Protein backbone atom coordinates (compact mmCIF):
# COMPACT_ATOMS: atom_id res chain seq x y z
CA UNK A 1 0.00 0.00 0.00
CA UNK A 2 1.32 3.41 -0.88
CA UNK A 3 1.67 6.07 1.78
CA UNK A 4 -1.42 8.23 2.22
CA UNK A 5 -1.39 11.48 0.29
CA UNK A 6 -1.33 14.57 2.44
CA UNK A 7 -4.06 17.15 2.36
CA UNK A 8 -7.17 15.01 2.27
CA UNK A 9 -8.41 16.64 5.43
CA UNK A 10 -6.78 20.02 5.47
CA UNK A 11 -6.86 22.71 8.14
CA UNK A 12 -5.00 25.96 7.73
CA UNK A 13 -4.53 29.02 9.98
CA UNK A 14 -7.54 28.10 12.07
CA UNK A 15 -8.56 30.43 14.90
CA UNK A 16 -11.51 29.99 17.24
CA UNK A 17 -12.49 31.96 20.32
CA UNK A 18 -15.36 31.62 22.74
CA UNK A 19 -16.07 35.16 23.82
CA UNK A 20 -12.75 36.80 24.68
CA UNK A 21 -11.03 33.44 25.30
CA UNK A 22 -9.00 32.14 22.39
CA UNK A 23 -9.27 28.36 22.20
CA UNK A 24 -7.61 27.39 18.92
CA UNK A 25 -4.61 29.47 17.96
CA UNK A 26 -3.40 29.27 14.37
CA UNK A 27 -3.87 25.51 13.98
CA UNK A 28 -2.49 23.85 10.85
CA UNK A 29 -3.10 20.22 10.02
CA UNK A 30 -3.03 17.95 7.03
CA UNK A 31 -4.32 14.40 7.21
CA UNK A 32 -3.97 11.81 4.47
CA UNK A 33 -6.74 9.54 3.25
CA UNK A 34 -6.98 6.30 5.17
CA UNK A 35 -5.15 7.52 8.24
CA UNK A 36 -6.32 6.69 11.73
CA UNK A 37 -5.51 9.95 13.34
CA UNK A 38 -5.84 10.42 17.10
CA UNK A 39 -5.96 13.76 18.86
CA UNK A 40 -5.04 14.10 22.54
CA UNK A 41 -4.44 16.98 24.87
CA UNK A 42 -5.04 18.21 28.40
CA UNK A 43 -8.67 18.65 29.37
CA UNK A 44 -10.12 21.91 28.18
CA UNK A 45 -7.44 22.45 25.53
CA UNK A 46 -9.99 22.53 22.72
CA UNK A 47 -9.94 19.00 21.29
CA UNK A 48 -13.68 18.88 20.91
CA UNK A 49 -13.67 22.44 19.63
CA UNK A 50 -11.33 21.42 16.83
CA UNK A 51 -13.55 18.45 16.06
CA UNK A 52 -16.60 20.70 15.91
CA UNK A 53 -14.90 22.90 13.31
CA UNK A 54 -14.31 19.85 11.13
CA UNK A 55 -17.82 18.57 11.77
CA UNK A 56 -19.34 21.94 10.91
CA UNK A 57 -21.25 22.30 14.16
CA UNK A 58 -19.32 25.54 14.64
CA UNK A 59 -17.46 27.74 12.23
CA UNK A 60 -13.94 29.04 12.79
CA UNK A 61 -13.30 32.75 13.34
CA UNK A 62 -10.58 32.56 10.72
CA UNK A 63 -8.93 29.90 8.64
CA UNK A 64 -10.16 27.07 6.46
CA UNK A 65 -11.15 23.46 6.84
CA UNK A 66 -11.36 21.42 3.64
CA UNK A 67 -12.03 17.79 2.84
CA UNK A 68 -10.71 16.62 -0.52
CA UNK A 69 -10.26 20.24 -1.49
CA UNK A 70 -13.82 21.33 -0.70
CA UNK A 71 -14.67 23.67 2.15
CA UNK A 72 -16.71 22.04 4.86
CA UNK A 73 -19.94 23.71 5.92
CA UNK A 74 -22.82 22.55 8.04
CA UNK A 75 -22.77 18.86 8.99
CA UNK A 76 -23.46 16.61 6.00
CA UNK A 77 -22.80 13.01 4.89
CA UNK A 78 -19.18 13.76 3.93
CA UNK A 79 -18.43 13.44 7.63
CA UNK A 80 -19.65 10.63 9.83
CA UNK A 81 -19.78 11.18 13.57
CA UNK A 82 -19.74 8.95 16.63
CA UNK A 83 -20.31 10.79 19.90
CA UNK A 84 -19.65 9.59 23.41
CA UNK A 85 -23.33 9.67 24.34
CA UNK A 86 -26.73 9.89 22.64
CA UNK A 87 -25.09 7.96 19.87
CA UNK A 88 -28.21 6.31 18.49
CA UNK A 89 -31.91 7.11 18.31
CA UNK A 90 -33.86 5.64 21.23
CA UNK A 91 -37.12 5.20 19.31
CA UNK A 92 -35.63 3.10 16.51
CA UNK A 93 -34.62 -0.53 16.59
CA UNK A 94 -30.94 -1.32 16.10
CA UNK A 95 -31.55 -2.21 12.46
CA UNK A 96 -33.60 0.91 11.82
CA UNK A 97 -30.88 3.00 13.43
CA UNK A 98 -28.30 1.60 11.05
CA UNK A 99 -30.49 1.87 7.95
CA UNK A 100 -31.45 5.47 8.81
CA UNK A 101 -28.73 7.05 6.70
CA UNK A 102 -29.84 5.10 3.63
CA UNK A 103 -33.46 5.84 4.40
CA UNK A 104 -32.83 9.57 4.56
CA UNK A 105 -31.18 9.45 1.15
CA UNK A 106 -34.38 8.35 -0.55
CA UNK A 107 -37.84 9.81 -0.77
CA UNK A 108 -40.54 8.21 1.40
CA UNK A 109 -41.92 6.54 -1.73
CA UNK A 110 -38.55 5.13 -2.77
CA UNK A 111 -38.10 3.88 0.78
CA UNK A 112 -41.33 1.91 0.53
CA UNK A 113 -40.16 0.12 -2.59
CA UNK A 114 -36.54 -0.36 -1.56
CA UNK A 115 -36.68 -0.92 2.14
CA UNK A 116 -36.21 -4.67 1.96
CA UNK A 117 -33.01 -4.27 0.01
CA UNK A 118 -31.74 -1.39 2.16
CA UNK A 119 -32.48 -3.30 5.35
CA UNK A 120 -30.49 -6.21 3.97
CA UNK A 121 -27.59 -3.88 3.38
CA UNK A 122 -27.88 -2.53 6.94
CA UNK A 123 -27.90 -6.10 8.15
CA UNK A 124 -24.50 -6.62 6.50
CA UNK A 125 -23.13 -3.66 8.43
CA UNK A 126 -24.60 -5.08 11.61
CA UNK A 127 -22.77 -8.31 10.90
CA UNK A 128 -19.53 -6.40 10.46
CA UNK A 129 -19.95 -4.88 13.93
CA UNK A 130 -21.11 -8.29 15.22
CA UNK A 131 -24.58 -7.21 16.26
CA UNK A 132 -26.69 -9.14 13.76
CA UNK A 133 -28.56 -11.07 16.44
CA UNK A 134 -29.58 -7.83 18.16
CA UNK A 135 -31.11 -6.22 15.08
CA UNK A 136 -34.63 -6.02 16.48
CA UNK A 137 -33.75 -4.70 19.92
CA UNK A 138 -33.90 -1.08 20.98
CA UNK A 139 -30.62 0.66 21.87
CA UNK A 140 -31.54 0.86 25.57
CA UNK A 141 -31.57 -2.94 25.67
CA UNK A 142 -27.89 -3.07 24.67
CA UNK A 143 -24.74 -2.54 26.72
CA UNK A 144 -22.71 0.64 26.31
CA UNK A 145 -20.14 -0.99 24.05
CA UNK A 146 -22.83 -2.47 21.81
CA UNK A 147 -24.53 0.92 21.56
CA UNK A 148 -21.29 2.44 20.34
CA UNK A 149 -20.98 -0.32 17.76
CA UNK A 150 -24.48 0.54 16.54
CA UNK A 151 -23.36 4.16 16.25
CA UNK A 152 -20.27 3.15 14.26
CA UNK A 153 -22.30 0.99 11.86
CA UNK A 154 -24.84 3.82 11.55
CA UNK A 155 -22.10 6.24 10.54
CA UNK A 156 -20.28 3.80 8.25
CA UNK A 157 -23.27 2.87 6.09
CA UNK A 158 -23.01 6.17 4.21
CA UNK A 159 -19.26 5.66 3.64
CA UNK A 160 -18.29 9.13 4.89
CA UNK A 161 -15.04 10.64 3.63
CA UNK A 162 -13.95 11.13 7.24
CA UNK A 163 -15.23 9.34 10.33
CA UNK A 164 -15.10 11.70 13.30
CA UNK A 165 -15.11 10.18 16.76
CA UNK A 166 -15.47 12.33 19.87
CA UNK A 167 -14.38 10.34 22.94
CA UNK A 168 -16.41 7.41 21.61
CA UNK A 169 -15.26 4.98 24.29
CA UNK A 170 -15.04 7.52 27.10
CA UNK A 171 -18.13 6.29 28.94
CA UNK A 172 -17.24 2.59 28.80
CA UNK A 173 -15.70 0.48 31.54
CA UNK A 174 -12.00 -0.42 31.06
CA UNK A 175 -12.61 -3.96 29.78
CA UNK A 176 -15.23 -2.97 27.25
CA UNK A 177 -13.11 -0.05 26.28
CA UNK A 178 -10.17 -2.28 25.40
CA UNK A 179 -12.43 -4.60 23.41
CA UNK A 180 -13.81 -1.64 21.50
CA UNK A 181 -10.31 -0.39 20.71
CA UNK A 182 -9.42 -3.77 19.30
CA UNK A 183 -12.68 -3.82 17.40
CA UNK A 184 -12.04 -0.40 15.89
CA UNK A 185 -8.57 -1.43 14.76
CA UNK A 186 -9.87 -4.57 13.08
CA UNK A 187 -12.58 -2.57 11.38
CA UNK A 188 -10.11 0.07 10.26
CA UNK A 189 -7.75 -2.54 8.84
CA UNK A 190 -10.57 -3.97 6.76
CA UNK A 191 -12.19 -0.72 5.64
CA UNK A 192 -9.21 1.67 5.69
CA UNK A 193 -11.48 4.61 6.29
CA UNK A 194 -10.08 7.97 7.36
CA UNK A 195 -10.66 8.37 11.08
CA UNK A 196 -10.22 11.43 13.25
CA UNK A 197 -10.39 10.21 16.82
CA UNK A 198 -10.51 12.59 19.80
CA UNK A 199 -9.69 11.24 23.24
CA UNK A 200 -8.30 12.44 26.54
CA UNK A 201 -6.77 9.02 27.17
CA UNK A 202 -3.14 9.10 26.07
CA UNK A 203 -2.70 5.33 26.04
CA UNK A 204 -5.77 4.95 23.89
CA UNK A 205 -4.45 7.55 21.47
CA UNK A 206 -1.02 5.94 21.19
CA UNK A 207 -2.49 2.46 20.91
CA UNK A 208 -5.00 3.29 18.18
CA UNK A 209 -3.40 5.89 15.98
CA UNK A 210 -1.28 5.61 12.88
CA UNK A 211 -0.65 9.20 13.72
CA UNK A 212 -0.97 11.00 17.00
CA UNK A 213 -1.57 14.72 17.32
CA UNK A 214 -1.07 16.54 20.60
CA UNK A 215 -3.11 19.69 21.04
CA UNK A 216 -2.03 21.81 23.97
CA UNK A 217 -2.07 25.33 25.33
CA UNK A 218 1.23 24.69 27.13
CA UNK A 219 3.90 26.21 24.91
CA UNK A 220 6.00 29.35 24.64
CA UNK A 221 6.38 31.83 21.84
CA UNK A 222 7.60 35.36 21.25
CA UNK A 223 4.32 36.88 22.31
CA UNK A 224 5.65 36.69 25.86
CA UNK A 225 4.04 35.53 29.07
CA UNK A 226 1.33 36.68 31.42
CA UNK A 227 -2.39 37.11 31.43
CA UNK A 228 -2.28 39.75 28.70
CA UNK A 229 -1.34 37.14 26.10
CA UNK A 230 -4.51 35.45 24.94
CA UNK A 231 -2.94 32.22 23.87
CA UNK A 232 -4.95 29.31 22.53
CA UNK A 233 -3.98 25.71 21.86
CA UNK A 234 -1.78 24.55 19.01
CA UNK A 235 -0.72 21.18 17.75
CA UNK A 236 2.55 20.91 19.61
CA UNK A 237 3.54 17.39 18.64
CA UNK A 238 2.76 15.14 15.71
CA UNK A 239 4.02 11.55 15.54
CA UNK A 240 3.79 8.90 12.92
CA UNK A 241 3.21 5.55 14.57
CA UNK A 242 3.90 2.11 13.15
CA UNK A 243 0.67 0.25 12.76
CA UNK A 244 1.86 -3.28 13.33
CA UNK A 245 0.57 -5.26 16.27
CA UNK A 246 -3.01 -4.80 17.17
CA UNK A 247 -2.98 -7.04 20.23
CA UNK A 248 -3.49 -5.01 23.37
CA UNK A 249 -0.28 -6.56 24.78
CA UNK A 250 1.61 -3.77 23.11
CA UNK A 251 0.36 -1.50 25.87
CA UNK A 252 2.65 -3.37 28.28
CA UNK A 253 5.65 -2.81 26.04
CA UNK A 254 8.37 -0.49 27.47
CA UNK A 255 8.66 1.47 24.23
CA UNK A 256 4.93 2.10 24.32
CA UNK A 257 5.14 3.34 27.88
CA UNK A 258 8.08 5.55 27.00
CA UNK A 259 6.22 7.23 24.17
CA UNK A 260 3.20 7.79 26.38
CA UNK A 261 5.45 9.38 29.01
CA UNK A 262 7.15 11.54 26.46
CA UNK A 263 3.86 12.85 25.11
CA UNK A 264 2.65 13.45 28.63
CA UNK A 265 5.69 15.61 29.31
CA UNK A 266 5.41 17.49 26.04
CA UNK A 267 1.75 18.22 26.05
CA UNK A 268 0.33 17.87 29.53
CA UNK A 269 2.98 19.40 31.79
CA UNK A 270 2.73 23.19 32.11
CA UNK A 271 6.24 23.35 33.61
CA UNK A 272 7.86 21.70 30.59
CA UNK A 273 6.65 24.08 27.92
CA UNK A 274 8.56 24.19 24.67
CA UNK A 275 9.01 27.07 22.36
CA UNK A 276 7.01 27.03 19.11
CA UNK A 277 10.21 26.64 17.20
CA UNK A 278 11.03 23.41 19.04
CA UNK A 279 7.79 21.50 18.51
CA UNK A 280 8.16 17.85 17.78
CA UNK A 281 6.46 17.68 14.41
CA UNK A 282 7.96 14.52 12.98
CA UNK A 283 5.11 13.43 10.81
CA UNK A 284 5.89 13.86 7.10
CA UNK A 285 2.53 15.60 6.54
CA UNK A 286 3.11 17.98 9.35
CA UNK A 287 3.20 21.63 8.37
CA UNK A 288 2.55 24.95 9.92
CA UNK A 289 2.69 28.61 9.18
CA UNK A 290 3.64 30.69 12.15
CA UNK A 291 2.93 34.38 12.30
CA UNK A 292 5.69 36.93 12.76
CA UNK A 293 4.30 37.68 16.21
CA UNK A 294 4.76 34.10 17.33
CA UNK A 295 8.31 33.67 16.07
CA UNK A 296 9.42 37.17 16.89
Amino acid at each position, binding site marked *: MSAPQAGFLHIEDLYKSYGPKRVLDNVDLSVGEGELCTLVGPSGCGKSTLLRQILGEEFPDAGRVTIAGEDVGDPDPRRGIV*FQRYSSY*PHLSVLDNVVLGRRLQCSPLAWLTQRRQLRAEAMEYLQRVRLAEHADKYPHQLSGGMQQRVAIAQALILRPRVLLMDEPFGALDPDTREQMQLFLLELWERERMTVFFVTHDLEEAVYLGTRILVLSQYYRDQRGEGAAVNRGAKIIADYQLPRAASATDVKRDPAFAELVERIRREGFDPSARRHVAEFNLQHPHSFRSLTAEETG
Partner: protein
Amino acid sequence: MRSIRKPRLFGLHAKPGRRLAWLLAAIPFLLLMLVYGTASHFRHQDNPADKLLPTAPQMLAAAERMAFAPDARSGKRLLWADTAASLQRLLIGLALAALVGLLLGLNIGLFPGMSAGGLPFVTFLSMVPPLAVLPILFITLGVDELSKIALIFIGVVPVITRDIAAQVAQMPREQITKALTLGATPLRLAYGIVLPQLWPRLIASLRLSLGAAWLFLIAAEAIAADAGLGYRVFLMRRYLAMDVILPYVLWITLLGFAMDLALRALLRWRFPWYAATRA
Protein backbone atom coordinates in the same frame (compact mmCIF):
# COMPACT_ATOMS: atom_id res chain seq x y z
CA MET B 1 -26.18 -13.65 61.35
CA ARG B 2 -29.14 -11.41 61.88
CA SER B 3 -31.03 -10.66 58.72
CA ILE B 4 -32.17 -7.10 58.24
CA ARG B 5 -35.88 -6.88 57.66
CA LYS B 6 -37.41 -4.05 55.76
CA PRO B 7 -40.29 -2.39 57.62
CA ARG B 8 -43.62 -3.05 55.90
CA LEU B 9 -45.35 0.22 56.55
CA PHE B 10 -43.30 2.98 58.15
CA GLY B 11 -40.18 4.82 57.13
CA LEU B 12 -38.29 5.68 53.99
CA HIS B 13 -37.46 2.10 53.14
CA ALA B 14 -40.84 0.52 53.79
CA LYS B 15 -41.80 -2.23 51.35
CA PRO B 16 -45.55 -2.82 51.58
CA GLY B 17 -46.43 -6.17 50.00
CA ARG B 18 -48.96 -6.44 47.21
CA ARG B 19 -51.89 -7.25 49.43
CA LEU B 20 -50.98 -4.62 51.98
CA ALA B 21 -50.68 -2.05 49.20
CA TRP B 22 -54.20 -2.84 47.98
CA LEU B 23 -55.51 -2.58 51.52
CA LEU B 24 -53.73 0.74 52.07
CA ALA B 25 -55.18 2.05 48.83
CA ALA B 26 -58.69 0.98 49.84
CA ILE B 27 -58.62 2.54 53.30
CA PRO B 28 -59.25 6.19 52.32
CA PHE B 29 -62.13 5.11 50.06
CA LEU B 30 -63.68 3.01 52.79
CA LEU B 31 -63.24 5.85 55.29
CA LEU B 32 -64.96 8.30 52.97
CA MET B 33 -67.88 5.91 52.47
CA LEU B 34 -68.12 5.30 56.19
CA VAL B 35 -68.19 9.01 57.03
CA TYR B 36 -70.75 9.69 54.32
CA GLY B 37 -72.90 6.70 55.29
CA THR B 38 -72.95 7.70 58.93
CA ALA B 39 -73.81 11.33 58.21
CA SER B 40 -76.50 10.33 55.74
CA HIS B 41 -77.96 7.83 58.23
CA PHE B 42 -78.30 10.38 61.00
CA ARG B 43 -79.77 13.05 58.75
CA HIS B 44 -82.39 10.61 57.53
CA GLN B 45 -83.15 9.64 61.12
CA ASP B 46 -83.98 13.27 61.84
CA ASN B 47 -85.76 13.94 58.58
CA PRO B 48 -86.74 11.03 56.32
CA ALA B 49 -87.25 13.49 53.42
CA ASP B 50 -83.67 14.80 53.56
CA LYS B 51 -82.31 15.63 50.09
CA LEU B 52 -78.81 16.76 51.02
CA LEU B 53 -77.13 13.44 51.73
CA PRO B 54 -79.10 10.75 49.89
CA THR B 55 -78.62 7.17 50.99
CA ALA B 56 -76.88 4.60 48.83
CA PRO B 57 -80.18 2.91 47.77
CA GLN B 58 -81.60 6.31 46.80
CA MET B 59 -78.55 7.09 44.66
CA LEU B 60 -78.64 3.64 43.05
CA ALA B 61 -82.27 4.11 42.17
CA ALA B 62 -81.56 7.53 40.69
CA ALA B 63 -78.59 6.21 38.71
CA GLU B 64 -80.69 3.36 37.40
CA ARG B 65 -83.41 5.78 36.35
CA MET B 66 -80.93 8.03 34.56
CA ALA B 67 -79.19 5.14 32.86
CA PHE B 68 -82.04 2.85 31.85
CA ALA B 69 -85.39 4.65 31.98
CA PRO B 70 -86.25 6.69 28.87
CA ASP B 71 -86.72 10.35 29.69
CA ALA B 72 -90.37 11.42 29.72
CA ARG B 73 -89.82 14.36 27.38
CA SER B 74 -87.05 13.32 24.99
CA GLY B 75 -87.41 9.54 25.24
CA LYS B 76 -83.60 9.27 25.64
CA ARG B 77 -81.68 7.42 28.30
CA LEU B 78 -80.17 10.53 29.79
CA LEU B 79 -76.93 9.23 31.31
CA TRP B 80 -75.79 7.78 27.99
CA ALA B 81 -76.98 10.73 25.95
CA ASP B 82 -75.13 13.08 28.31
CA THR B 83 -71.99 10.93 28.26
CA ALA B 84 -71.97 10.77 24.48
CA ALA B 85 -72.42 14.52 24.14
CA SER B 86 -69.70 15.31 26.66
CA LEU B 87 -67.18 12.78 25.40
CA GLN B 88 -67.62 13.96 21.85
CA ARG B 89 -66.82 17.55 22.82
CA LEU B 90 -63.94 16.50 25.05
CA LEU B 91 -62.31 14.14 22.58
CA ILE B 92 -62.60 16.48 19.59
CA GLY B 93 -61.24 19.37 21.64
CA LEU B 94 -58.37 17.33 23.04
CA ALA B 95 -57.48 15.73 19.71
CA LEU B 96 -57.30 19.09 17.96
CA ALA B 97 -55.32 20.58 20.83
CA ALA B 98 -52.90 17.65 20.79
CA LEU B 99 -52.32 17.89 17.05
CA VAL B 100 -51.85 21.65 16.97
CA GLY B 101 -49.81 21.68 20.19
CA LEU B 102 -47.55 18.94 18.84
CA LEU B 103 -46.85 20.71 15.55
CA LEU B 104 -46.42 24.13 17.14
CA GLY B 105 -44.22 22.77 19.93
CA LEU B 106 -42.09 20.80 17.49
CA ASN B 107 -41.38 23.81 15.30
CA ILE B 108 -40.91 26.23 18.17
CA GLY B 109 -38.60 23.85 19.98
CA LEU B 110 -36.50 22.93 16.96
CA PHE B 111 -36.17 26.08 14.87
CA PRO B 112 -34.70 29.11 16.66
CA GLY B 113 -36.51 31.46 14.29
CA MET B 114 -39.87 29.90 15.09
CA SER B 115 -39.04 30.03 18.76
CA ALA B 116 -38.21 33.73 18.60
CA GLY B 117 -41.41 34.43 16.73
CA GLY B 118 -43.77 32.08 18.52
CA LEU B 119 -42.71 31.32 22.06
CA PRO B 120 -43.35 34.73 23.66
CA PHE B 121 -46.81 34.80 22.11
CA VAL B 122 -47.68 31.27 23.22
CA THR B 123 -46.36 31.98 26.71
CA PHE B 124 -48.48 35.13 26.81
CA LEU B 125 -51.58 33.29 25.56
CA SER B 126 -51.12 30.56 28.12
CA MET B 127 -51.67 33.15 30.83
CA VAL B 128 -55.11 34.13 29.53
CA PRO B 129 -57.61 32.41 31.83
CA PRO B 130 -59.65 30.31 29.37
CA LEU B 131 -62.85 30.69 31.37
CA ALA B 132 -62.60 34.45 31.03
CA VAL B 133 -62.68 33.95 27.27
CA LEU B 134 -65.78 31.77 27.42
CA PRO B 135 -68.27 34.66 27.05
CA ILE B 136 -66.34 35.82 23.98
CA LEU B 137 -66.57 32.32 22.54
CA PHE B 138 -70.30 32.15 23.18
CA ILE B 139 -70.80 35.54 21.55
CA THR B 140 -68.65 34.84 18.50
CA LEU B 141 -69.13 31.11 17.95
CA GLY B 142 -72.63 30.67 19.29
CA VAL B 143 -73.73 28.47 22.14
CA ASP B 144 -73.57 25.19 20.23
CA GLU B 145 -70.83 22.59 20.04
CA LEU B 146 -68.17 24.79 18.47
CA SER B 147 -67.74 27.16 21.41
CA LYS B 148 -67.34 24.29 23.90
CA ILE B 149 -64.76 22.52 21.74
CA ALA B 150 -63.01 25.84 21.22
CA LEU B 151 -62.79 26.43 24.96
CA ILE B 152 -61.11 23.08 25.56
CA PHE B 153 -58.82 23.71 22.60
CA ILE B 154 -57.83 27.19 23.77
CA GLY B 155 -57.26 26.00 27.31
CA VAL B 156 -55.10 23.00 26.43
CA VAL B 157 -53.09 24.08 23.36
CA PRO B 158 -50.67 26.46 25.11
CA VAL B 159 -49.85 23.90 27.78
CA ILE B 160 -49.11 21.14 25.27
CA THR B 161 -47.21 23.49 22.98
CA ARG B 162 -44.93 24.68 25.76
CA ASP B 163 -44.38 21.18 27.08
CA ILE B 164 -43.50 19.76 23.66
CA ALA B 165 -41.29 22.74 22.82
CA ALA B 166 -39.41 22.26 26.08
CA GLN B 167 -38.98 18.58 25.30
CA VAL B 168 -37.62 19.31 21.83
CA ALA B 169 -35.27 21.97 23.16
CA GLN B 170 -33.90 19.42 25.61
CA MET B 171 -33.08 16.95 22.88
CA PRO B 172 -29.36 16.25 22.83
CA ARG B 173 -27.66 18.35 20.17
CA GLU B 174 -25.76 15.21 19.21
CA GLN B 175 -28.94 13.67 17.82
CA ILE B 176 -29.56 16.61 15.52
CA THR B 177 -25.96 16.87 14.29
CA LYS B 178 -25.90 13.14 13.70
CA ALA B 179 -29.08 13.26 11.62
CA LEU B 180 -27.50 15.94 9.45
CA THR B 181 -24.40 13.79 8.88
CA LEU B 182 -26.79 11.03 7.85
CA GLY B 183 -28.19 13.31 5.18
CA ALA B 184 -31.37 14.55 6.83
CA THR B 185 -32.88 17.74 5.45
CA PRO B 186 -34.32 20.09 8.09
CA LEU B 187 -37.80 18.90 7.14
CA ARG B 188 -36.94 15.21 7.39
CA LEU B 189 -35.14 15.91 10.66
CA ALA B 190 -38.22 17.59 12.13
CA TYR B 191 -40.88 15.18 10.89
CA GLY B 192 -38.91 11.96 10.44
CA ILE B 193 -36.64 11.93 13.46
CA VAL B 194 -37.80 14.42 16.09
CA LEU B 195 -41.56 13.98 15.68
CA PRO B 196 -41.62 10.18 16.21
CA GLN B 197 -39.78 10.71 19.48
CA LEU B 198 -42.45 13.14 20.70
CA TRP B 199 -45.52 10.87 20.67
CA PRO B 200 -44.90 9.47 24.14
CA ARG B 201 -44.28 12.93 25.56
CA LEU B 202 -47.52 14.07 23.93
CA ILE B 203 -49.38 11.22 25.65
CA ALA B 204 -47.84 12.17 28.99
CA SER B 205 -48.76 15.79 28.38
CA LEU B 206 -52.34 14.82 27.48
CA ARG B 207 -52.65 12.84 30.69
CA LEU B 208 -51.78 15.94 32.66
CA SER B 209 -54.17 18.06 30.61
CA LEU B 210 -57.16 15.77 31.11
CA GLY B 211 -58.20 17.41 34.38
CA ALA B 212 -58.14 20.89 32.87
CA ALA B 213 -60.03 19.71 29.79
CA TRP B 214 -62.83 18.27 31.93
CA LEU B 215 -62.97 21.50 33.91
CA PHE B 216 -63.43 23.58 30.76
CA LEU B 217 -66.00 21.15 29.42
CA ILE B 218 -68.15 21.14 32.56
CA ALA B 219 -67.92 24.91 32.83
CA ALA B 220 -69.03 25.43 29.24
CA GLU B 221 -71.86 22.92 29.60
CA ALA B 222 -73.00 24.46 32.85
CA ILE B 223 -73.57 27.80 31.17
CA ALA B 224 -75.18 26.83 27.88
CA ALA B 225 -76.07 23.35 26.65
CA ASP B 226 -79.02 21.02 26.19
CA ALA B 227 -77.17 17.83 26.96
CA GLY B 228 -73.94 16.75 28.62
CA LEU B 229 -72.71 15.62 31.98
CA GLY B 230 -71.94 19.14 33.19
CA TYR B 231 -75.28 20.43 31.93
CA ARG B 232 -77.11 17.67 33.85
CA VAL B 233 -75.27 18.27 37.09
CA PHE B 234 -76.02 21.97 37.02
CA LEU B 235 -79.62 21.36 35.94
CA MET B 236 -80.16 18.99 38.85
CA ARG B 237 -78.79 21.58 41.25
CA ARG B 238 -82.01 23.54 40.75
CA TYR B 239 -83.97 20.60 42.18
CA LEU B 240 -81.39 19.89 44.90
CA ALA B 241 -81.28 16.40 43.36
CA MET B 242 -78.17 15.20 45.14
CA ASP B 243 -79.19 11.62 44.39
CA VAL B 244 -78.46 12.34 40.71
CA ILE B 245 -75.57 14.79 41.14
CA LEU B 246 -73.42 12.52 43.26
CA PRO B 247 -73.58 9.50 40.89
CA TYR B 248 -72.90 11.86 37.98
CA VAL B 249 -69.83 13.29 39.67
CA LEU B 250 -68.64 9.78 40.40
CA TRP B 251 -69.23 8.79 36.77
CA ILE B 252 -67.30 11.81 35.46
CA THR B 253 -64.44 10.94 37.78
CA LEU B 254 -64.44 7.34 36.61
CA LEU B 255 -64.42 8.41 32.96
CA GLY B 256 -61.41 10.66 33.55
CA PHE B 257 -59.66 7.96 35.51
CA ALA B 258 -60.28 5.40 32.75
CA MET B 259 -58.94 7.77 30.10
CA ASP B 260 -55.81 8.32 32.15
CA LEU B 261 -55.33 4.56 32.56
CA ALA B 262 -55.87 4.00 28.85
CA LEU B 263 -53.28 6.61 27.91
CA ARG B 264 -50.82 5.10 30.34
CA ALA B 265 -51.39 1.65 28.89
CA LEU B 266 -50.90 3.04 25.38
CA LEU B 267 -47.62 4.61 26.49
CA ARG B 268 -46.31 1.36 27.87
CA TRP B 269 -47.51 -0.73 24.98
CA ARG B 270 -46.45 1.38 22.02
CA PHE B 271 -43.41 3.20 23.44
CA PRO B 272 -41.47 0.82 25.66
CA TRP B 273 -38.26 2.78 25.01
CA TYR B 274 -39.68 5.97 26.50
CA ALA B 275 -39.60 5.00 30.16
CA ALA B 276 -36.28 3.19 29.68
CA THR B 277 -34.48 6.16 28.18
CA ARG B 278 -35.76 8.67 30.72
CA ALA B 279 -34.18 6.92 33.66
